[in-house]
């Protein structure tokens, strides 16, 4: 018998269950793209059959970090850049929990960049949503890792001399097995992509374009957007690494020229997730670690039985 009965519970799930009674109204600025992420998550979760108490939403710091204040699941609002190591360990401790990590572009691609690379490389079975608004919002509009070259801000008064980071290409290189870009201005596509990401058995990275009307640009600047799957102008196979890489590169090249390309870029359904790999080499138990502490029949090993090698 499980000690975690919210997991896999068979029942109707209402979208409103994900709105916390204590803080139903987000404090994001009017017109903020973050509302789009929240809305599509609230739609996607019941549609994939997840209830609030079997989901752990782990966030970093910034406007995006408040996501789990407004999404009623188990939540862990961690520290700047560290949502991924916290999230992936929670998954290792209890693989039955649905783990979603989220944070901004500074959080995930800047200060947490090392964790992003390694979590993708290890292909943990989780979803990572990066609220990419191409700016630091909560500290008042400084240039971020995805800000366009030449971006002027209080900390880059003459315009940034740095080229923006390429999030999709970086995820592919690192080893993510589901990579997509969506935008707050396209909530239907966003919902579908989130659903696919949750159901994907591996590390699913969503670069989510979230306009920042206060410091950067408003929603109109992400319109018109193009869905690369639906447009006749683009034809590539998301299962083909080379084609995906090329499409990502083009997408990243044209974003700051005013062409907003979105959609699925890479899907690898073949590679085993990290837990599967780790179980295969015999370094992860079948019974979740977290369950064992509640299992009264469990016989705990003890150091007394290890002493022969010391005698």
């Amino acid at each position: 018998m499980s000690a975690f009965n919210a997991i896999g519970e068979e029942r109707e799930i209402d979208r409103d269950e994900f709105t916390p009674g204590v803080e139903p109204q987000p404090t994001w600025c009017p017109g903020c793209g973050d509302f789009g992420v929240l809305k599509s998550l609230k739609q996607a979760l019941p549609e994939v059959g997840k209830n609030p108490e079997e989901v752990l939403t782990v966030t970093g710091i910034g406007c995006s970090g408040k996501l789990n204040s407004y999404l009623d699941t188990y939540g862990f609002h961690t520290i700047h850049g560290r949502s991924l190591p916290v999230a992936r360990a929670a998954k290792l401790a209890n693989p039955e929990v649905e783990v979603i990590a989220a944070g901004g572009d500074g959080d995930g691609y800047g200060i947490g960049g090392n964790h992003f690379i390694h979590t993708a490389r290890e292909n943990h079975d989780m979803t990572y949503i990066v609220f990419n608004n191409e700016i630091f919002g909560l500290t008042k509009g400084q240039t971020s890792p995805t800000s366009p070259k030449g971006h002027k801000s209080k900390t880059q008064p003459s315009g940034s001399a740095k080229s923006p980071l390429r999030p999709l290409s970086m995820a592919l290189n690192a080893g993510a097995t589901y990579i997509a870009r969506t935008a707050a201005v396209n909530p239907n596509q966003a919902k579908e992509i989130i659903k696919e990401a949750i159901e994907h058995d591996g590390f699913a990275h969503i670069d989510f374009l979230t306009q920042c009307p206060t410091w950067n640009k408003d929603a109109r600047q992400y319109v018109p957007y193009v869905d690369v799957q639906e447009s006749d102008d683009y034809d590539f196979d998301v299962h083909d690494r080379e084609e995906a890489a090329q499409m990502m590169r083009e997408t990243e090249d044209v974003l700051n020229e005013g062409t907003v390309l979105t959609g699925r870029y890479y899907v690898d359904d073949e590679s085993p997730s990290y837990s599967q790999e780790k179980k295969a080499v015999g370094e992860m138990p079948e019974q979740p670690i977290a369950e064992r502490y509640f299992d009264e029949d469990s016989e705990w090993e003890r150091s007394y039985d290890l002493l022969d090698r010391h005698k």
Partner: protein
Amino acid sequence: MAIYSKGFRHGETKFWIPLANWPLISMSDEELIWRVSGGSGDGIDSTSQNFAKALMRSGLHVFTHRHYPSRIRGGHTYVEIRAAGHEVQSRGDGYNFLLALGDSFARNPQEEAYYGNEEIKPLSENLDELREGGVIVYDEGLLSEDDVAELDLEERAEENNWHVYPVDLRGLAKEHGREVMRNTAGVGITAGLLDMELEHIEDLMSDAMGGDVLESNLEILHEAYEMVGDEIEAEHDLRAPTGEHDTEQALLSGSNAIAYGAIDGGCRFIAGYPMTPWTDVFTILSQNFPDMGGVSEQVEDEIAAAALAVGASHAGAKAMSGSSGGGFALMSEPLGLAEMTETPLVLVESMRAGPSTGMPTKPEQADLEFVLYTSQGDSSRVVFAPGNIEEAYEQTRLAFHIAWEYQIPTIIIYDQKLSGENKNVDVEFFDREPEPGLGSTLTEDELAEAAHDNSGKFKRFQHESENGVSPRSLPGQKGGRYLATGNEHSPVGHISEDPDNRVYQMERRMQKLESIRTELEEEHESNQTYFGEEDAEYGIITWGSSQGAVEEAVGRLNEQGHSVKGLSVSDMMPFAETEVTEFLESVDEAMVVEMNATAQFRGLIQKELGRFGEKMTSLLKYNGNPFEPAEVVEGYEVNVADEDREPTAQVRIEPAAGD
């Protein structure tokens, strides 16, 4: 025979060992201190481990000390094994038997080489500490005649009454097997010269190897053993001591003990990044966890390592991480997050000489203030500093108990010395039940009865509770959802900057430390260790791995007629206030012994107790080598007994405040 009290419960009479029972440990003929030296990568460590086990199996108490450079191939290294019929808790003063094997990876033997003539170092570096009447065996197959001649060995041997036996160990090994087996030849000669039986050495070899390799090694062992008497005429008095154990013994390092304390404390998740000397604990658990349903993760950096431990704990695993100085610095953030979110967590910090990269393979006790206070805001953590192998096990186990009961990060601070030294321990010491409970974590049934807000969110962080602990839930449990955040937060975990809420939450978190102090005093044996007689006039106070040297020094000072007792403190936070106060009140003067340059522990005592500044002096050592008992004895004589001279050892004496 125990020579100190293992602790006591508060309110009970302290158990002080009468002087008559102190063993005479200063007589060199009652103990063997065997030093095997060579180069890094020459198998010195494994050779010494097996020899130490053989001595233990023969009924002796053993204690080892490891000296090595931060290099993999080449560079002078030695291991010292102290063996006696009575308990040994420390290095001795100097040593009495040298087996110099040569450094087969020695670099640049020409004169101008940065590290000097490395080929001769296994012999030349070890002469100053060899006692009068000591024995030297060196491998004349590896050490050149000219180099040895330059050392004036003959003259020095005559002056010090040393007995020198040059043997072609390398040649002997090559003749019967391979050159690397010269360590075996050295052990054979040692056993012959000490008049030891080969039985235990043979058994250990048979356990470790088989086939031709075993055959060759046994042949070499016997050949070398029989050379004594046949070819080598032994003219020294030193013999292997004799002894007997009442119960079965095991040889363990501090790192073994910490890892085993974690296993028995129910830990099944560890994350880390390699760094000397912490790597030992990480390795031992990584190798054992696959067989016991645990998960070990080697990750991208120490920020991630500690963050993983926080994440695993949050989701329901008993988790730990750790590092040494520089790596632990990266853990400051997740440590603070664990304090704020009240996530149970055990971290270990294995000190080495700092600052920065410092001396990676040398011990020091200079990270105390760092571990107590790193991370922003007021510290809300527990810190234990075990002083020996048994304490390392006990206090790691206790760390898991405290961390999960009180939802608080608990840190074990130890050092390179305790990490790597081996000592025999009663096997039955470990014969106890594991403690895999999750402490103040609720089941779903209990959650159903627990406090929730109107919307059904669990009140994970209540404003008030009896002992400061507000029970927790785990993701996936029905009825337990809440938000954990590094921001200040309301009872259901949502961000809150309300002043009243802030004060409630701060005070409840601080209250946990008081409750822990109470539990430590009322429900557990004291973690502090006492030596000497209760009514002594003078005190020596120490912490961590300097305990053994202080213990032995106190014994010797009493033999010399001084009235002195010792206290070794482990409870750094919450501080062992009552016990240290009682101790300091009971003496006229006290000397605080620690391996750092700024008297950090003495500073902590003054900060915690707010007095005794004029009573305490310091004996400090920070040259990269641990204290030897004689250095503490000398420090006491110069410092406390006011003898008008400077210490001869490389130590510093700090006067009392106001002096």
